[in-house]
């Protein structure tokens, strides 16, 4: 057994970590959040140039990594520094471009020349009704897609969208250009920073990427691995910041970390975060197994980071007292991000249910 991430990956981590410390400090983050796009395009371009985006994909399509642990460490750094940007969108759209062998489109994405995002979950309208599955019609080189997708990451900045739609023979992935006819976009900010949008397609011209539905499942599984690693990293930041605060904040003449009531709570948080870290490792380690095993571990990880994420975020704020409630303290933004990661790609309960289902089928 070997729990080290290896030399090459350590180099990747160091490069990314240095770059983010330099280019994505807290002030830059504030500015990015306030901007129309919700992220800093120059930072994105810089990361592409360093090859960070390429680390998410295999060599066959112009990347230089693409293993689940490569994905994990990149998203771990994202969780540590919290730069807003289309990381998950790039990963999931890119995995489907990779599956389709579309090295040209993916190459532009990896180079930062083009922004890609992934539109899968149906839109929900004001009265709570869920849009029907998007549908595709056509054949060969000539397809159109219609439907409505909800909360598509960084849609307003995207040049291309990988859209899932039903061909009548099952779910397939299509590439749609955001500038094409029949594409309508509503862009908005997110509560934890960054942006997303609602996508409405009316007979929008599309290119079929793959009609192998299992490729879509793989892309989602990669997204879950990434989300779990990001969440675990955010938790560790919250833990370290809170520990530091418990050591330095004094009330009643002593550091509040001397109160046993807080010590035991902090111990629980710390041990739970270790479990979340292990869950994230499990998801990456089982990524290459059969789909059912992979998905069970992905759901186990998403359930765990959802459950522990709530605890870690709430306890971090609580143990900081009033100061933990402020915008000025980065901690509150980590807490918000962690909580919102709980909503990405399915919530804790949904993954618990999925775990049960997959376990019963096994």
């Amino acid at each position, binding site marked *: 057994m070997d729990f080290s991430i290896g030399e090459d990956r350590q180099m990747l981590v160091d490069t990314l970590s240095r770059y983010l410390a330099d280019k994505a400090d807290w002030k830059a983050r504030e500015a990015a959040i306030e901007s129309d796009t919700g992220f800093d395009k120059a930072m994105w371009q810089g990361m592409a140039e360093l090859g960070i985006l390429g680390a998410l994909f295999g060599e066959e399509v112009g990347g230089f990594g693409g293993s689940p642990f490569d994905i994990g460490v990149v998203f771990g750094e994202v969780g540590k520094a919290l730069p807003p940007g289309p990381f998950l969108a790039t990963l999931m759209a890119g995995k489907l471009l990779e599956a389709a062998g579309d090295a040209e489109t993916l190459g532009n994405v990896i180079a930062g020349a083009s922004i890609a995002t992934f539109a899968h979950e149906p839109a929900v309208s*004001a009265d709570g009704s869920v849009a029907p599955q998007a549908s595709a019609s056509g054949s060969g080189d000539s397809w159109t897609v219609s439907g409505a997708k909800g909360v598509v990451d960084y849609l307003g900045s995207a040049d291309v969208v990988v859209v899932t739609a039903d061909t009548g023979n099952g779910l397939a992935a299509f590439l749609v250009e955001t500038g094409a006819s029949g594409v309508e976009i509503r862009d908005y*900010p*997110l509560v934890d920073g960054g942006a997303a949008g609602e996508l409405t397609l009316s007979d929008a011209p599309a290119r079929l990427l793959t009609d192998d539905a299992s490729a879509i499942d793989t892309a989602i599984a990669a997204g879950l691995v990434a989300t779990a690693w990001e969440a675990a990293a955010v938790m560790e930041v919250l833990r370290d910041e809170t520990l530091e605060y418990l050591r330095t904040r004094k009330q009643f003449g002593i550091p509040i970390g001397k109160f046993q009531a807080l010590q035991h709570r902090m111990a629980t948080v710390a041990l739970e975060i270790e479990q979340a870290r292990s869950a994230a490792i499990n998801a990456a380690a089982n990524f290459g197994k059969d789909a059912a095993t992979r998905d069970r571990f992905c759901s186990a990880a998403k359930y765990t980071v959802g459950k522990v994420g709530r605890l870690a975020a709430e306890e971090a704020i609580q143990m900081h007292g*009033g100061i933990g409630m402020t*915008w000025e303290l980065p901690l509150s*933004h980590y807490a918000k991000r962690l*909580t919102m990661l709980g909503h990405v790609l399915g919530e804790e309960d949904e993954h618990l*249910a999925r775990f049960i289902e997959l376990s019963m089928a096994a």
Partner: protein
Amino acid sequence: MNLDFTPEDEAFREEVRVFLKEKLPKRLSDKVRTGQHLGKADMEEWHAILNERGWLANHWPKEWGGTGWSVMQRFIFETETAIAHAPRVVPFGLSMLAPVLIKYGTEEQCRHYLPRILDGTDWWCQGYSEPGAGSDLASLKTQAVRDGDHYIVNGQKTWTTLGQHADWIFCLVRTSNEGKRQEGISFLLIDMKTPGIEVRPIKLLDGDHEVNEVFFTDVKVPVTNLVGEENKGWTYAKYLLTYERTNIAGVGSSMAMLDRLKEVARTTMRGGKPLIEDPLYAARLAKLEIDLENMKTTNLRVLDAAGAGHAPVAESSMLKIRGTEIRQEINDLMRRAAGRYAQPFIAEALDEGFNGEPVGPEWANPIASEYFNNRKLSIFGGSNEVQREIITKAVLGL
């Protein structure tokens, strides 16, 4: 045992309901229901409506404009107004300062300040906490030094809720550094327009401005603004903290929130079914409902004992903890119900007159920020840890 309300109480409830139906402006209840921001004018409008009926200061003694209601009637009133989505009455002048003035202030102070609280002339804020004095309030440092007919005040208060609207602030200040820390604290009323006071906003994690820092530099305060005796402020402050506890559990507001949550769970689809039929979600909802029902009866038991003259100190701590946990849990379940739509956030939609399209379910926009904002419930008013300390010592004798 009989848990029914008396016919008189039921008649009273009906009276309150009729009043709310007739007098609560739909514009205000809509704002409360949909989580929009209430401005100063909104809160003042509701205060004026209650005052016209003589119900604004319902817990004050009758001679000062109170109602003479029993604790049970007050509970019913608070519950019904919350269920009707009425704005919450701003507590600082009405529920915090006034009882202290009535008990410890001079006749003259009461005559001057109380009517102005009732008619809305003065907006009060609470100046207790300081950067270094939160849970350990007695360590406060803001200093008031006697100089002839005045005190000269220097120091800083923080977390001052709605201080940006305030005309006056009631402050705990240090007037002596001798003896026990608690015995050098005085209770001072300060006009916010006095030179040397600066109010700076603090932005909370949801982006909202509801708290402030207040700085005092050589602020001259007439000694007639002292409440009670010098160096006895701690006693008054403690009285203030334990006085208005009938509503600490927030039963009415939780009931209103739970109704809304259930409606959401019925209309939200998850995996092709209403969320309320999802076994895991249904279990969360059921546990919450059971907790609320249990707390409701606990609250009534405490009120019943209070009516019989028992001062509910430790019981208030229990109600504060459970009440805030339940409200936070409701916020959590709302957030879960929204699924991915918890994340989009259009800040302008919280302002009156927003007529843009909502994103996703029409109720979803404010719920993540409400969840984050309500993390404050377990921090302020004596943190839940501090409340547990009180239970440990006062009830359990450990």
